[in-house]
């Protein structure tokens, strides 16, 4: 064969095996020499199934026959066949290879050409990419949590409530009530036991709220000792009073701080959609004002 063509085949970045009609190896390019550690002299003239035992299966024999007799090309994917040619270092993780089997005819002689593509890195790259995508999805999820949830109590925050309110208002069809809750006596706890203990009390209260909350209810912390409860599908005066009683009930059990029993109460104001306002801000300020009236009564 022409030296130049041989040189080209040896420069290729994939494996090339040329077989004669008896399936004996006639060419084994440099890529394969490096990959397998077997020199061309070692393998030349040997049957392919001796050198590449994984090709000693009925289906490959069938593909070889189809290629020689009918000039049919066969593609075998790594996904279905894993690999064909063993690597020099058998200890390494098994590689993944695609192969392409085809027929070549020069004058009156038929050959089989097998191209071997190592796609191991390919798969690793895809796996890494998937991992990367997953971690960035996780990150954006945690970011979302950060934006919509209060870091101290893990309750939904002001932004969450405002967004939810706006969405409910857009839907129009839905009725809902918004309770504004302000804890009485919280400042005294802060002053007497310190901020850390005050934070602890807020967390304990938040835990009780979480247990209380059902579907279509949102308990959120606006900031400081201000909380809101949003209840969908409910605006009757009767039901509003029941909810207020439930919230007071939440505070009946004393909180234990540094072995002291502390009882806290709340002032609650309520605003209903649509009668008390048609924007989130209006509703919040009505509920806040109602709460303020309650507080002033005390």
């Amino acid at each position, binding site marked *: 064969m022409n030296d130049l063509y041989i040189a080209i085949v040896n420069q290729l970045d994939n494996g090339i095996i040329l077989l004669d009609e008896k399936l004996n190896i006639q060419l084994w390019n440099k890529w394969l020499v490096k990959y397998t550690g077997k020199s061309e002299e070692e393998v030349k003239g040997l049957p392919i199934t001796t050198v590449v035992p994984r090709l000693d299966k*009925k*289906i490959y024999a*069938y593909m070889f026959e*189809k290629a020689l007799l*009918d*000039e*049919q*090309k*066969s*593609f*075998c*994917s*790594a*996904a*279905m*066949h894993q690999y064909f040619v063993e690597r020099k270092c058998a200890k390494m993780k098994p590689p993944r290879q*695609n192969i*392409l089997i085809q027929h070549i005819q020069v004058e009156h002689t038929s050959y089989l050409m097998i191209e071997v593509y190592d*796609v191991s890195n*390919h*798969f690793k790259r*895809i796996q890494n990419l998937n991992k990367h995508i997953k971690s960035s999805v996780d990150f954006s999820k945690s970011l979302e949590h950060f934006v919509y949830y209060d870091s101290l109590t893990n309750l939904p925050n002001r932004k969450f409530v405002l967004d939810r309110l706006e969405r409910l208002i857009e839907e129009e069809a839905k009725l809902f009530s918004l309770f504004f809750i302000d804890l009485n006596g919280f400042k005294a706890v802060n002053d007497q036991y310190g901020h850390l203990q005050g934070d602890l009390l807020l967390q304990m209260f938040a835990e009780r709220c979480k247990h209380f909350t059902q579907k279509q209810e949102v308990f959120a912390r606006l900031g400081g000792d201000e909380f809101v409860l949003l209840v969908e599908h409910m605006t009757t005066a009767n039901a509003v009073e029941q909810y207020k009683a439930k919230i007071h009930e939440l505070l009946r059990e004393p909180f234990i701080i540094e072995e002291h029993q502390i009882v806290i109460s709340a002032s609650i104001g309520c605003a209903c959609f649509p009668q008390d306002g048609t924007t989130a801000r209006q509703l919040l300020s009505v509920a806040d004002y109602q709460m303020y009236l309650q507080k002033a009564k005390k």
Partner: protein
Amino acid sequence: MTTTQEDILKELYNVFVGEAANLLSEILQKRIFLSVPEIKLLGLHELKSGEQEVLNPVINGTVLSTSLRFGNVFSGRADFIFPAEQIKYLTALCLGEEYTEENEELSFNDEDFDVVKEIGNIILNSIMGGMGSLMEMKLEYDVPQVILHNAGEFYKTLTSSGDSNVLLLYVSFDIDNSKVLGIILIKFSLESIEFLIRKVDEISRDLDE
């Protein structure tokens, strides 16, 4: 096409597809259940008409197709198309992985394309090989190319190259109790389809003598 012609072609394709299923089952080490194939000769314009109920959702949905062109005298292109949702299932099956339907958004990687390429290669090889021996001529063709078509695109590429006839083959096969529907479309030039029909008639005449 007359019923006799249809019957003959169907039986011939049955043998080709059976051979392909055999190869696939050896590779996957799984029994493959074939369904009774359907075969139809249609004008391209008929492809989109409402009659093709089975076909429409497939052709107009997101599909992966492997396609090859063949021949000079007897010429055309053959496509093996798969609804895209099935690919992930097939790849998982080949890799021996558990298939989960959690991914709502379909995204494909080289692994998926390679699986489709190989399956397409096996099926189209059997069919083109069989067609070649039927025509008593050597059909030249290559390893198929895999293309992902978004909804509606496949039909466009199919109809873009002038008016011709399409031989339609539905093959559905079950692997591990899940139905995988593949459709084989072979688009012929006008002369080629006449040639094919003439061959089929010859066979039918030989039998009646």
